[in-house]
């Protein structure tokens, strides 16, 4: 028996130390009391949760986060699916496919922040797009909604997170036996029929994993939304950040617990749609 315990011990220790204990502490602190600008006082209270759930600001923030999540999910899925499809089924040469796949990762050689900030000189009032349109006479006033708007937030998210969609879908598609596609065509399926009835169902593990990445990344973000909206939009996490600014750790912890529950629910529903475990060992 002992060797079995020894085998699971390293993972158990790592998970306990770096996952169970921190989350446990966050949950614990979420029930503590907050003293103005001093921090936590270890009294049991439900006030933090009551405060959050009855405050319309919380709902506004979650609503805005969900909105961004859904929009970004839809766009990154559309892009990710077609890019992966192109790489796997259109590029005949494996080496070319791998080469193109690596090209997709090139933007990731720079840091997140650089990739995000670089959009500002492109989208700004005196930015590339506006100057180009002004100089060619298409518009006579700079377009303001390009920057510091929901639009610029979505642009940055899509740019940052599409790769997280491409990689798992690419991986799933690469495992599809090409003869299945031939069989479908032989059986009279149209080009779209093949995609709809063969490729899409067989890529759903990748889609589920990609969706999970994108959902957790967008829901956990406050930096992109703050910077790209010029501080005009918020997210659930920016609510947490604001609380931390004033040392209100208990309410920040309570908010983190609520966010964790929502993300777990989303993850659970994704896994309900797709049995990732079964698909992975396929």
């Amino acid at each position, binding site marked *: 028996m002992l060797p079995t315990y020894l085998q699971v011990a390293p993972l158990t220790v790592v998970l306990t130390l770096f996952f169970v204990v921190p989350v446990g502490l966050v949950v614990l602190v979420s029930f503590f009391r907050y003293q*103005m*600008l*001093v*921090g936590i006082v270890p009294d049991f209270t439900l006030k933090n949760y009551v405060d959050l759930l009855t*405050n*319309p*600001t919380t709902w*506004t*923030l979650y609503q*805005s986060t969900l909105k961004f999540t859904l929009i970004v999910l839809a766009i990154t899925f559309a892009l990710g699916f077609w890019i992966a499809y192109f790489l796997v089924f259109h590029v005949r040469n494996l080496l070319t496919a791998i080469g193109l796949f690596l090209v997709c990762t090139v933007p990731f050689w720079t840091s997140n922040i650089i990739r995000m900030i670089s959009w*500002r*000189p492109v989208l*700004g*009032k*005196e930015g590339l797009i506006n100057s180009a349109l002004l100089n060619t006479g298409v518009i006579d006033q700079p377009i*303001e909604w390009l*920057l*510091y708007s929901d639009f610029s937030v979505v642009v940055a998210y899509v740019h940052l997170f599409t790769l997280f969609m491409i990689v798992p879908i690419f991986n799933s598609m690469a495992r599809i036996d090409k003869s299945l596609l031939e069989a479908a065509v032989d059986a009279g399926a149209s080009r779209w029929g093949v995609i709809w009835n063969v490729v899409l169902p067989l890529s759903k593990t990748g889609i589920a994993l990609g969706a999970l990445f994108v959902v957790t990344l967008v829901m956990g973000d406050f930096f992109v939304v*703050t910077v790209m909206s*010029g*501080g*005009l939009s*918020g997210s659930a996490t*920016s*609510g947490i950040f*604001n609380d*931390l*600014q*004033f*040392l*209100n750790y208990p309410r920040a912890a309570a908010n983190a617990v609520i966010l964790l529950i929502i993300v777990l629910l989303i993850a659970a529903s994704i896994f309900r749609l797709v049995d990732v475990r079964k698909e992975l060992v396929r």
Partner: protein
Amino acid sequence: MKKTGGLLNGRVSRRSVLKGGAAVAGATAVTGFPMVWAQNLKDVTLMHTGMSYSTLPDIARQATQDLGFKVEMSVVDHPGLLNRLVQDPKSLDIADLEIWQSKVAVPQGALQGIEIAKIKNWGELTPLYTEGKFGGKEASRQGDSPFEYIYREGMDTNGFAGGVTEWANFCPGVYNADTLGIRPDLVGREISSWADLISADFKGKTAIQNIPTNGIMDAMMACESAGLLTYGDKGNPTQDELTATIAKLIELKKDGHFRALWSTFDESVNLMASGEVVIQSMWSPAVTAVKAQGVKCVYQPLKEGYRGWGNGLGMLAHLEGLKRDAAYEYLNWYNSGWVGGFIAKQGYYSSNPATAMAALSENERGFFYEGKAATADITSPTGEKTNSAGEVRDGGSYEERFSKVAVWNNLPDEAEFLYAKWNEFNAA
């Protein structure tokens, strides 16, 4: 590079003589064994912790060179400093705090009293801090004015004294009077009032700082000037006043009035330099930074007056023995000239104007303190040109500027309510 090095060395040699004198005088008073003391002092390291605008590595470098022990700088943001003072006070030795932050730090017992007799040049320090006066007249008491928080009764009494005592909560640091920054080439008309921040003329071209305690002050100055709201005491607004002000801000935000809300120094610089906004809340060094990029920017004086703020250097409660002696040495050095000259070029003022002015060239002194036209180009601390010969500093002389402080940065009694309301504004 070479030239600067030469200049610094020149200063050091003059200063080390002074320092030697101070060390001996101080040493005999403290231990009576100057040699041993001077030896050990080399091993002391002081951690100076504060916000980015005043916690500058150049100051630490110069202090280390001049004092013979090591001074290090660690930069935190406003809540970060409070956090450290309360949660981890041993991680810093000197707290470079804003006056209002002392309202949290002092009652928490994070600081020890500073014996005023050990601060040699206390008598020369600006009466704004030490007497609550400026130019012989009573300075504004709206908000957290330095004088109300600087004194305490004794070394370990963690509170604020009503008047002048022998003990200080902090030694005066840098300070300034803030106003709005504008792009004179783009505003298209004269700017003379805080009300212009919320004027419809600048819809979509303004920004306000996303730091609740400061942002609300700018908003209150604007609302009051525009005749929209009145306040009993802008330094300590009531819940109703805050609710009304935030409601106005939300209305403006929904109407697309604000191009952005900025929370860091560089954001405010970029917004202004790129022309995204033409009028906004701003800090003085940010205006300098915009000008250093060759873009026109003015720190516009307004008829309602300035929003003043000040920093103080507090000694952490855990300092004792040699380290405390080193801390006193550092506080004395801080107001002895070099720092004053350095920060003047950022647009800030030293609490010891006399020594700061002595550390500046005649041209710089005239420009930064005396309201005179520059006789040659003025450069930032890093050497970029910020003003040409013939220009006069925005807001005029030191006296002119500080006689017009209307209100001080503060931590209102209703701060928690303010934070909740500000969150609403952020989420709206």
